[in-house]
């Protein structure tokens, strides 16, 4: 048997953690996306290549989904997905083996699914698997090296960049796992061990509302003033990080004043 009071306290703590994580994610948005973009941009500069992209494996659909790219048509490739077992990228992903090929544009048998979607047909491709001790998470593709074919040094550099991208993606996956775990814990605690109703007598609809509220923010309404504030803080961090401290001081004053007001008789 569980202690309903302890459950309620744990529930309140988890809700607070979820809200804080959600607010933090809003205020420092998608740092991992920026890192992945930096990796592909670096790849094009260091390897003197026309374009580069990173595709991540989606285990549910068993597809490789492009999440970052640099070079011509780079905006078009992000969001595209390809067969995880086909083509040069698929080979690198399924075998964990780095592979470069040239003359693909001249070969009518080249898998053109991505080329057709973006209008960019590469002449040469270097595909490097994104691997670590836990497995393979995706592929780094570098396209069209200027002034010749890919060299041994290029393979090494691509391997080092792939390692960086892998760390970013693994961290993102762990963050996703942590969010899923948090959600699971919230559901379990809210439901208690009695199935339909929890320790505080919540029915399923109430549990859903609670979990949704805790894991997707204070409000699902993007126009909620709280999120407007979070977004403003996020923007402020970009243009003037010093002012964030000033705003925090203002908020302190505001909240202290509000606390004083609420203690005043008749308020």
């Amino acid at each position, binding site marked *: 048997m569980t202690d309903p009071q302890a459950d309620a306290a744990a529930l309140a703590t988890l809700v607070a953690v979820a809200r804080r994580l959600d607010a933090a994610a809003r205020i420092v948005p998608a740092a991992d996306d920026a890192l992945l973009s930096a990796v592909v941009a670096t790849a094009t500069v260091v390897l003197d290549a026309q374009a580069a992209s990173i595709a991540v494996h989606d285990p549910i659909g068993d597809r490789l989904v492009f999440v970052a790219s640099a070079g011509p048509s780079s905006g078009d490739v992000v969001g595209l997905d390809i067969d*995880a*077992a*086909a*083509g*040069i990228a*698929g*080979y690198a992903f*399924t*075998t*964990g*083996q*780095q*592979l*470069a*090929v*040239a*003359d*693909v544009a001249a*070969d*009518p*048998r080249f898998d053109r699914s991505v080329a057709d979607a973006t209008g960019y047909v590469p002449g040469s491709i*270097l595909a*490097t*698997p994104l*691997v*670590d*001790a836990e*497995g*393979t998470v995706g592929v780094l593709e570098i396209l069209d090296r200027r002034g010749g*074919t*890919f*060299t*041994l*040094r290029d*393979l*090494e550099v691509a*391997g080092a960049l*792939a*390692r960086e991208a892998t760390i970013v993606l693994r961290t993102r996956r762990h963050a996703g796992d942590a969010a899923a775990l948090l959600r699971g814990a919230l559901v379990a605690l809210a439901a208690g061990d009695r199935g339909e109703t929890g320790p505080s007598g919540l029915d399923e609809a109430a549990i859903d509302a609670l979990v949704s509220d805790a894991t997707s923010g204070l409000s699902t309404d993007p126009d909620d003033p709280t999120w407007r504030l979070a977004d403003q803080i996020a923007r402020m961090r970009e243009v003037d990080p010093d002012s964030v401290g000033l705003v925090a001081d203002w908020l302190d004053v505001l909240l202290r004043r509000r606390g004083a007001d609420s203690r005043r008789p008749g308020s």
Partner: protein
Amino acid sequence: MDAAVPAWSEAFASGSAGRLVRDGPLGRLSRDEVFGDADGAGVVVAVIDSGVDADHPAVLGHVARRLRVDVDGDAVRVVDDESAGDLVGHGTACAGIIAGIAPAARLVSIRVLGADNRGKGRAVAAAVDWAIEEGIEVVNLSLSSRSEAMFGVFHDLADRAYFANVLLVCAANNVPGPSYPSLFAAVLSVAAHDIADPDVWFYNPSPPVEFGAFGVDVDVPWRDGGRIRATGNSFAAPHLAGQAARLRSRHPAATPFEVKALLAATANPTP
């Protein structure tokens, strides 16, 4: 593993080959004496990969048998399938390199990639197990497993192959991390060098990768009768699988360690 570990090909890159200098017990042996005019006759080489396009002009008449690995839940089976063509082009490339070096060797393609098994470690392990049971002389493995769970399985397979005189020739990975069985001592591991000559190979006395062979911008047969220029350790391994087939055809009783010793003693001196 240490993030600073260099890519394995670095040992064989132009300019860094000085570290390969070594005064081995066999000294340098003459290739003419060791290989003669051996062409791989009487030797079977298995290509565990994406399948082989047996009608490709580069391998036409060389492919004796084609199989595929089926993974169905816990069951893994190796079955004959003469229609098991090449899903990528990679297996045909490896087969073409071997056929070019050891033209009289008979090739057996075991396809481990595909919609169902996706090159899973279990599929590769089943293919290696089959090759051991069949007593295949040389096995080219231009792929490996990164699953820690497969460490023990591949370690046992590598030892079994070694004692059964089945030589596993494995492409090393160019990125650090687990890679089975390519980094086991019982196999012949290969990384790429960039000297455009299929007859140039180096021995590296600093493991884990023991041999370097041509693997940069190699003109290889590809899917559907085409050709492509490809780079990777994948294309270095079959160069030495071909040479190993020649050795086994001239010295049928040679064991894996003797083949490795002869390949080391006939390796090119460092540039």
